[in-house]
């Protein structure tokens, strides 16, 4: 029983998150519909809050239950037409969803719990709910020949919608349809979708097959701009009758309304299942282990080669190749299952921007692009906070006040653009603002003041960007409420690096700033180059590898006590991989010693890793490593590359971070 209770609790968090996400989307939709809000949408919002309240109440999450209860009361009045939709109400709904999200977080995090106070919000909701009723409903249903059976089956809400339709002069029609039992649901959804284009299906009442057959009949109560004949034309399978005692004399032409998206989304939602991400991780681990098994099969096949008969070997090779293909399919499918569109967090971001813009008294337009770009579910979750922070920064520091913008000849409304797109096996996310840009001098002064650099250090643009990400840096003279929160860009950078991604900044003073985040699509299984250095093997993620070259010792030069190599007329800093992990010293080797350079890149910086040999390319599964190695820079984890052979996986970004790299387009060696 307790375990089942746990199941319900776990399901609750997942379902509550889904409800709140869909609420956010519906609110955005509500906002975009302006004056012509579709009743279906208001009812959907009501139902989401209603479900949330029911769930939270049953499972004892009293904070969420209470807030959603108050909200539900207000929404009930809204859908019943007792209060009107306006700006204040939409704002209130957004704030409520915010608080509900926080309360949900608070379930698992006592630190958050202490921060959530909904007293003020609750009194705002009460105030809103007690606003003057819009108008009183009179018994207009007397104007209809509505049979008792149908009338009694209406919920209070449906009855209200019927009254509204009568009041606004719609045709009130009854459509009777009969469908075969096997597919009545599809048929009914199809006809409902068609009808919803020109009106509202108020109630759907099932009954015995009216034709006496084995199917099932439905009576659809339909309020519409279409008259009896027009409705019969778009729903030829239905028997249509007009319920008005005195039908309208002139039928207005059916307006071309947009497609009922809600109906569509309801259908598209049904064939999905929700799965705990931990289960997918487990499947992924199994796939990873299968891949290792397959590598061993390859090894065995190779070792058999000289002694066995050709036919047997061919057979074995063929099996291995087929297995390889199927494994690839399996792996790709599992990765795909974990993928979710980044648009899932867009709603949350736009909510934050609205709120911040209001607090800062700035006018901001948020442009969101590439919402269909997919990323691993886990990464999407981890990405929300860093993105939020960068956007906050843009609003707070980047975008100028309207007055200043006008003086500069810019549009008064500041614009923040978020664009996500796929590039090979990476996803790029650009956050661009058209604000004042980053001034290297301002950065320098701030850095000196905070003791990060000495006053005689020169700060060019590149160095300024680096300082931005330095711990303890913040350009605002006082830690502002917005960007403050005790978190700096250094934390953002660390978060992104934990996702094996990179973050770079590019700015044009006066014109704006772009933060570019590049992330691998998934962390689970990656292609890697296995190399040997100092007698040990290492795996370098292929996504970070640009190319590899063979050189001799004599090609290596030393500039400013640092080994470099001239590649296509530019200077590439080198790092002996073995040195990086303290495995080898002394470079006094004969000038004709052979080396390999693996040219790696992380974001805008590159470095040449000097290794003894390239072993092969293969798929690896990165596993976490023990605490002892966690603090060693340059290591992403460990992986098994064959029969109990464990190697370290290189984290190129943190390696460059620690040992310096060369920025793209510049020819100087690194500056540390």
């Amino acid at each position, binding site marked *: *029983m307790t375990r*089942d*209770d746990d*199941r*319900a609790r776990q*399901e*609750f968090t*997942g*379902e509550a998150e889904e409800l709140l996400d869909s609420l956010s989307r519906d609110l955005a939709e509500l906002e975009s519909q302006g004056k012509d809000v579709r009743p279906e949408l208001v009812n959907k919002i009501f*139902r989401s809050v*209603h*479900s949330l*309240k*029911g*769930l939270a*109440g*049953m*499972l004892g999450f009293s904070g969420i*239950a209470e807030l959603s209860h108050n909200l*539900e*009361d207000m929404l*009930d009045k809204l859908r019943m037409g007792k209060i009107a939709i306006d700006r204040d109400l939409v704002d209130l709904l957004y704030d409520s969803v915010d608080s509900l999200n926080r309360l949900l977080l608070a379930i698992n995090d006592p630190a958050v719990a202490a921060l959530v106070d909904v007293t003020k919000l609750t009194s705002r909701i009460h105030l809103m709910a007690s606003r003057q009723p819009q108008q009183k409903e009179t018994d207009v249903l007397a104007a209809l020949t509505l049979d008792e*059976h149908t009338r*009694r*089956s*209406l*919920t*209070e809400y*449906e009855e209200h919608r019927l009254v509204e339709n009568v009041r606004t002069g719609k045709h009130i029609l009854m459509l009777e349809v009969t469908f075969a*039992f096997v597919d*009545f*649901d599809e048929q*009914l*959804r199809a006809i409902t979708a068609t009808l919803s284009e020109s009106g509202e299906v108020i*109630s*759907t*009442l*099932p*009954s*015995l097959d009216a034709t006496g057959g084995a199917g*099932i009949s439905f009576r659809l109560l339909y309020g519409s701009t279409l008259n009896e004949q027009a409705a019969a034309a778009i729903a030829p399978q239905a028997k249509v009758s007009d319920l008005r005692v005195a039908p309208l004399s002139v039928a207005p032409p059916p307006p071309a309304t947009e497609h009922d998206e809600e109906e569509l989304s*309801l259908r598209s939602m049904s064939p999905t299942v*929700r799965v705990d991400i931990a289960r997918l991780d487990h499947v992924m681990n199994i796939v990873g282990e299968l891949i290792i098994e397959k590598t061993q099969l390859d090894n065995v096949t190779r070792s058999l080669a000289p002694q066995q008969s050709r036919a047997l070997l061919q057979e074995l090779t063929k099996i291995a190749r087929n297995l390889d293909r199927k494994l690839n399919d399996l792996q790709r499918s599992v990765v795909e299952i974990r993928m979710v569109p980044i648009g899932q967090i867009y709603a949350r971001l736009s909510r934050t921007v609205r709120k911040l813009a209001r607090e800062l008294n700035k006018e901001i337009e948020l442009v969101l692009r590439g919402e269909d770009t997919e990323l691993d579910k886990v990464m999407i979750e981890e990405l929300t906070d860093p993105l939020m922070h960068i956007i906050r920064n843009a609003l707070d520091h980047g975008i100028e006040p309207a007055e200043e913008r006008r003086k500069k000849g810019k549009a008064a409304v500041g614009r923040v653009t978020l664009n996500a797109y796929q590039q090979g096996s990476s996803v790029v996310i650009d956050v661009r603002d058209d604000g004042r840009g980053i001034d290297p001098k301002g950065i320098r002064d701030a850095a000196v003041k905070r003791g990060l650099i000495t006053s005689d250090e020169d700060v060019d643009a590149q160095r300024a960007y680096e300082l931005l990400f330095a711990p303890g840096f913040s350009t605002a003279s006082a830690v502002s409420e917005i960007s403050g929160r005790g978190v700096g860009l250094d934390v953002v950078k660390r978060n992104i690096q934990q996702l094996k991604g990179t973050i770079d900044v590019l700015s044009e003073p006066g014109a704006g700033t772009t933060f570019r985040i590049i992330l691998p699509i998934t962390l689970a299984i990656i292609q890697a180059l296995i190399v040997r250095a100092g007698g040990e093997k290492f795996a370098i993620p292929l996504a970070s590898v640009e190319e590899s070259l063979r050189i001799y010792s004599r090609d290596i030069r030393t500039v400013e006590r640092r080994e470099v190599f001239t590649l296509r007329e530019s200077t590439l800093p080198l790092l002996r991989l073995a040195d990086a992990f303290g495995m080898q010293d002394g470079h006094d080797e004969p000038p004709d010693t052979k080396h390999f350079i693996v040219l790696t890149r992380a974001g805008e910086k590159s470095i040449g890793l000097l290794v003894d040999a390239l072993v092969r390319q293969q798929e690896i599964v990165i596993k976490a490593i023990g605490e002892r190695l966690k603090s060693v820079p340059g290591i992403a984890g460990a992986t098994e590359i064959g029969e109990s052979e464990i190697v370290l996986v290189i984290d190129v970004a943190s390696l460059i971070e620690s040992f310096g790299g060369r920025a793209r387009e510049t020819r100087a060696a690194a500056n540390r």
Partner: protein
Amino acid sequence: MKILVVEDSSSMRAYLSTIIEGGSESYDLEIVEASSGFEALKSLPHHKFDAILTDINMPDINGLELVSFLKNHPVYSKIPIMVISTESSEEDRKRASALGAEEYLVKPFESGELVDKLRRLLRVA
């Protein structure tokens, strides 16, 4: 005993089923879950239900419409129905009993309350 639970929220379904199973030591029990009114309608010909528990607020057809269908059906009208909904739907509760629903349970409820009412509905000790 075979019971149909109609509820669009999966966690609420899980919770209801858990309580019902927990309170069924004295009788054999099979629970069929439906996530919408449509699913409920589709399941009817395949089972012989001893009781039906349904939510009111659901997409496609709602609980009242389901009750209305069942109580006007020559075969299914004898199946006892318990409507489960929230206190804010007081008016709808009245309508459900006018349509012939036998029991009503208001969310949030104590698990004992559900077990007792279900026993009454099933006429088991």
